[in-house]
């Protein structure tokens, strides 16, 4: 029991160096940054992927099918390592081919790229489903008004599909915030890794992991509130979901 009660040593959480509070907050900040970046990248890839799957020719459709199937069947940890090495290798080869210097990719950029690529596969499926759920009559009405393909998508398909996509996209956001923890395994200093270092250095494993869990939980709960606002905004005028 002593270890549990003695474990809550508030001095260890002080914000300045003898305490580890500052490190944890910096980790949390990195986590949020990586999650946001990866989410936005995933959305862009997903939008492109969904359009490609719906309108693309056979080659594009099949490559996207392989992309989504492969990403969704392989554990994130394996993907993170594969994409990290493959991505930095390809980038450096490309740079060398262009006669530029090799670069070291920052942990932040690598984390965003790796998780974003993974998110893109899931987002493709979510957005594709949402696009197909838009009643075709509405799009045809747009075409009848003489709107171009681009106008039809900007004015009709994308706004109309948002309510269908929100539950899936909200889920993806919650997944990516938690997936950032996996980057600890490859050594990016986000919240999970900062926590592990703090726990290892002070030997108060229990306390630090509980605090990290609480920080992640807080992130999720705050996200839930924001998601509810967004959903209420985009579903206005539509019947309530039970």
């Amino acid at each position, binding site marked *: 029991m002593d270890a*549990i009660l003695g474990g809550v040593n508030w001095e260890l959480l002080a914000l300045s160096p003898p305490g580890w509070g500052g490190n944890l907050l910096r980790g949390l900040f990195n986590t949020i940054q990586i999650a946001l970046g990866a989410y936005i990248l995933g959305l862009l890839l997903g939008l492109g992927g969904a359009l490609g799957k719906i309108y693309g020719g056979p080659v594009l459709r099949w490559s996207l099918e392989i992309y989504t199937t492969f990403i969704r069947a392989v554990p994130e940890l394996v993907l993170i390592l594969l994409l990290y090495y493959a991505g930095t290798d390809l980038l450096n080869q490309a740079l060398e081919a262009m006669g530029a210097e090799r670069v070291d990719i920052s942990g932040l950029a690598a984390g965003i790229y790796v998780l974003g690529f993974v998110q893109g596969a899931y987002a493709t499926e979510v957005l594709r489903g949402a696009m197909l759920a838009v009643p075709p009559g509405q799009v045809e009405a747009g075409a009848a008004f003489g709107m171009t393909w681009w106008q039809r998508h900007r004015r009709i398909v994308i706004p109309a599909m948002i309510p269908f996509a929100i539950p899936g996209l909200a889920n993806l956001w919650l997944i990516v915030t938690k997936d950032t923890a996996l980057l600890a395994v490859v050594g990016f200093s986000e919240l999970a890794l900062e926590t592990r270092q703090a726990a290892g250095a002070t030997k108060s494993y*229990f306390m630090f992991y509980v605090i990290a869990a609480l920080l992640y939980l807080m992130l999720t709960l705050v996200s839930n509130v924001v998601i509810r606002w967004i959903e209420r905004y985009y579903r206005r005028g539509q019947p309530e979901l039970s």
Partner: protein
Amino acid sequence: MQWYWLPEYAPKFVDGLFLTLQLLGLSLFFGMALAIPIGLVQVTGPKPLAWAARAFCTVIRGTPLLIQLWLIYYGLGSLFPSIPGIRESFLWPVLRDAFPYAIFAFTISVAGYEGEVMRGAFRGVPRGELEAARAFGMHPFTVLRRVWLPRALQNVFPTLAGEMVLTLKSTPLAATITIFEVYGVGTIVRQETYRIYEPLIFLAGIYICLTGVIVLIFRWAENRIPRTRAA
């Protein structure tokens, strides 16, 4: 691409595969056994129980599995030795091993996610069917066993297949607490041979096969469920 290392490490991969399947099977079994009551009390249980189940699901689903795993293995694990006499007790060999901690962590994770799925599943069974069962004079447990649970499971069968794949994909996390399942064996190969891509690609292939097997098993089982199709 060089695969010379494969024959040498093949037996280790087989052991690792066995460990992965053990982790998956045990945590799914215990996790589902917990998820059914967790889902049920949220639909019909007394308020405090329903509230506790809801809080459990929120906490489990709101924190990364990696943190849960480390909290249980390093956190709880570091507290046990301070209990007097525990090193002499029969529990010590179990508490010293990483495997039970991993099973425990994966079990509560499965229970949290699947509890949420089962809540929706139990709620989705039409009331008329339950009322009909009660009208036949069935005991509440008989209603659950014969009507409510089978109908609920049937409705979420495809979801459960997806969740099982997600659980499979989270088993590599066990490698971070010294359990050498398939992914762990892969990291050993990477460290010992300095090959970067081949072991990772091999691992990806193994997981794709496992996912395929799960999908096929569920599709086969799904086709065995009799259902009336809307004409």
